[in-house]
């Protein structure tokens, strides 16, 4: 077995091994149990509540939770718009970078408050250090919002009848300070000692050995990088994201960054098991997600290691696999592993350029985002999975002729309607917007020639990928797409907004409605949800609803390209 494969196996084993204790810790945080970090965090949290003017003991209904979330997110959008359109004269701009245009600022603000981090700009030339620090703030608190809202759903799934589900601000502050902050702090320290810059100084000039004068961009990268990886944010400090040697200097930093991507998403599943005291259910969910993850991962790694068939025909050996858009210090296996990590979890950072992935790898990366719940984003990944569980409960109960019940609560027409709308929203957003952009492009290919960097099927994949990434709140891209135009900035902005808030509102509504209902104790007639049979049922629903709706579109893009290379 070669060292590249060994590296990715080790990364996976390590992330699961770390996620299990972290999940228990997260469970304790939302259950308000004591942890060994209380002596530091109790005073800190109290400062947040006091200065925020919040009564953290006040109980909220599911509607009040949503109102609190939407209000604070709206405020973040306004602040972000102001900073991004005024960066040029605001402080902390040593490189003299310009302010953003209105449409680009709209896209970027939406992108960062929705935890997407799609970037139609390049960090080196399009963002001041103040801008970067403000974006880093959203990377903390938009992730905190996602975890907090998942905590609300966890509370609603408990075995009791309840109108109220805890306090939103309390979940939010505790997510930021007790989960994200310590992890970000520790990994940031690791990064600064391993070659990632952390400085407020601007560009430096270096004379290369061949005598060229080279400008070298720097900045407060390490702090930004740490939370970018942990909060499933993914927006790079530099244009090349974690392929940049300052944002990912070595294989060791690459391992820590890769592990950071999936750590909290996996831990959330075990946190659920701890909070509900249903470990078996957590293991079933973890099993289904892992199965899906592996089904995407294995063919991608094989495809990248085998390299590009067209280059092989030129008589070149590809011992390292497909190397276009990849860095030698990571190699093709670790790059393929990152690609599937980042797309399954709605992270969206990259350590290799996805536009240059071999066709099938590009497809599996897209499928990861289309399903968007194999581990998924911090918090929201579970919400997507929750919808599939509700659907699976309904379908399998009808198959055996029972009243659909989920964790002791009757699932009725209203909840099913919401679940169906949310399940179909994602394919709807992606397919409609991709067909719209294809229509515009094909009507006037000369005027829009700047859109696509590649012709034919791959060009279609670039558009499909962009909207998939937006709707999944992922943020990675086939970056050959010339996306800093009003059309792309505004259209993907709208898709990101709908792809973020509707899939939060839906599951919270369902969970809130279910929580109000009478609890029915488990009996012989109850459909068991913590069995592997039910796990397979969830998997089948995901395959039918999510994967198959995209099959025709994938045929036009990556699948056709794959056969053209044969």
């Amino acid at each position, binding site marked *: 077995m070669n060292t*590249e494969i060994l*590296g990715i196996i080790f990364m996976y084993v390590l992330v699961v091994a770390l996620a299990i204790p972290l999940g228990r810790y997260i469970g304790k945080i939302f259950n308000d149990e004591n942890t060994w970090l209380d002596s530091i965090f109790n005073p800190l949290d109290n400062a947040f509540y006091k200065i*925020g*003017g919040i009564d953290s003991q006040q109980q909220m209904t599911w509607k009040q939770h949503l109102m*609190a979330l939407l*209000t*604070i997110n709206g*405020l973040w959008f306004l602040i972000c718009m102001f900073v991004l359109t005024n960066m040029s004269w605001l402080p902390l701009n040593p490189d003299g970078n310009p302010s953003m245009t209105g449409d680009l600022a709209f896209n970027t603000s939406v992108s960062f408050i929705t935890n997407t981090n799609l970037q139609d700009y*390049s960090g*080196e030339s399009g963002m001041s250090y103040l801008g970067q620090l403000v974006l*880093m*703030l959203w990377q903390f*608190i938009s992730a905190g919002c996602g975890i907090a809202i998942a905590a609300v759903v966890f509370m609603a799934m408990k075995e009791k009848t309840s109108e109220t589900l805890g306090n939103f*601000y309390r979940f939010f*502050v505790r997510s930021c300070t007790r989960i994200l902050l310590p992890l970000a*702090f520790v990994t940031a320290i690791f990064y*600064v*000692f391993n*070659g990632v810059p*952390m*400085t407020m*100084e601007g560009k*430096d000039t*270096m*004379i*290369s050995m*061949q005598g060229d004068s*080279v*400008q070298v961009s720097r900045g*407060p990268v390490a702090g930004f990088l740490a939370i970018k990886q942990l909060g499933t944010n993914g927006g790079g400090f530099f244009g*090349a994201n974690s*392929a*940049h*040697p*300052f944002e990912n200097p070595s*294989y060791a930093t690459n391992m820590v960054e890769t592990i950071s991507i999936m750590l909290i998403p996996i831990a959330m599943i075990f946190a659920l098991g701890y909070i509900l005291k249903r470990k078996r259910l957590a293991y079933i969910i973890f099993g289904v997600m892992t199965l899906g993850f592996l089904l995407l991962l294995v063919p991608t790694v094989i495809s990248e290691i085998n390299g590009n068939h067209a*280059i092989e025909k*030129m008589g*070149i*050996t590809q011992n390292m696999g*497909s*190397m*276009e*858009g*990849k*860095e*030698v*210090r*990571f190699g093709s296996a670790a*790059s393929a592993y990152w690609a599937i990590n980042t797309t399954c979890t709605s992270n969206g950072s990259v350590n*290799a*350029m996805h536009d*240059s992935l071999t066709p099938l790898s590009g497809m599996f990366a897209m499928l990861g985002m289309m399903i968007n719940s194999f581990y998924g984003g911090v918090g929201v990944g579970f919400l997507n999975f929750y919808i599939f569980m509700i659907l699976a409960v309904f379908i399998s109960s009808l198959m055996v002729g029972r009243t659909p019940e989920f964790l002791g609560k009757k699932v009725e027409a209203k909840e099913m309607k919401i679940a169906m709308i949310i399940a179909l929203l994602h394919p709807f957003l992606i397919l409609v917007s991709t067909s719209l952009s294809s229509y515009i492009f094909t009507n006037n290919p000369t005027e829009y020639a700047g859109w696509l*960097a*590649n012709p*034919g099927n*791959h060009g279609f994949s670039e558009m499909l990928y962009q909207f998939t990434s937006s709707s999944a709140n992922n943020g990675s891209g086939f970056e050959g797409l010339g996306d800093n135009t009003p059309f792309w900035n505004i259209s993907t902005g709208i898709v990101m907004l709908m792809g973020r808030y509707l899939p939060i509102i839906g599951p919270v509504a369902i969970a809130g409605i279910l929580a109000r209902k009478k609890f029915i104790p488990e009996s012989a007639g109850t459909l068991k949800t913590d069995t592997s049979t039910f796990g397979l049922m969830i998997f089948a629903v995901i395959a039918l609803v999510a994967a198959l709706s995209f099959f025709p579109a994938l045929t036009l893009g990556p699948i056709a*390209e794959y056969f*053209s*290379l044969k």
Partner: protein
Amino acid sequence: MKTNIFPAIRLTLFCALFFSGIYTVAILGIAKFTPNNGKGQIITQNGKTYYSNIGQSFTQDKYFNSRPSAVNYNAAGSAGSNKGPSNPTYLAEVQARIDTFMVHNPGINKADIPSDLVTASGSGLDPNISVEGAKVQIKRIAKVRNISEEKLLELVDKQTEKPLFGLMGTSKINVLKLNLALENNK
């Protein structure tokens, strides 16, 4: 709405102070304890300073050449080529790189050229090449510099960075360090 707006404003301001401010300052403070104070790792030779992680454009025959770059090693504008695997223009470009390499390195078998030497990296700043990528250039450099091939091979072996703990990842060569060692070898 009203009950939420004031807590939202106050909480956001404090979050900004804490996460953008205090957190950043703390990491900046810790970075002062790293080599070169968190300004990026550097390497100095003959009074000249280079960033050891930032790849440089090496195109001259007397140096070990670095990988192709979509941005010509512009460290203030990193990017990959973003060319798809089936793009005909891209494939023609790769073919041209192979032909150029064959001209500059006579007597080399085409099958010995590793793919990293004819493909552009993700960042455009890749500081590394594969070990095969260095070895395939030895013949040319031996001729240009009049150094024996054995000595160059020794140099390459010395500069080879093994996988992490010998177990994980790739073997690689930092082109800058190899060329600095080559210059020192005179």
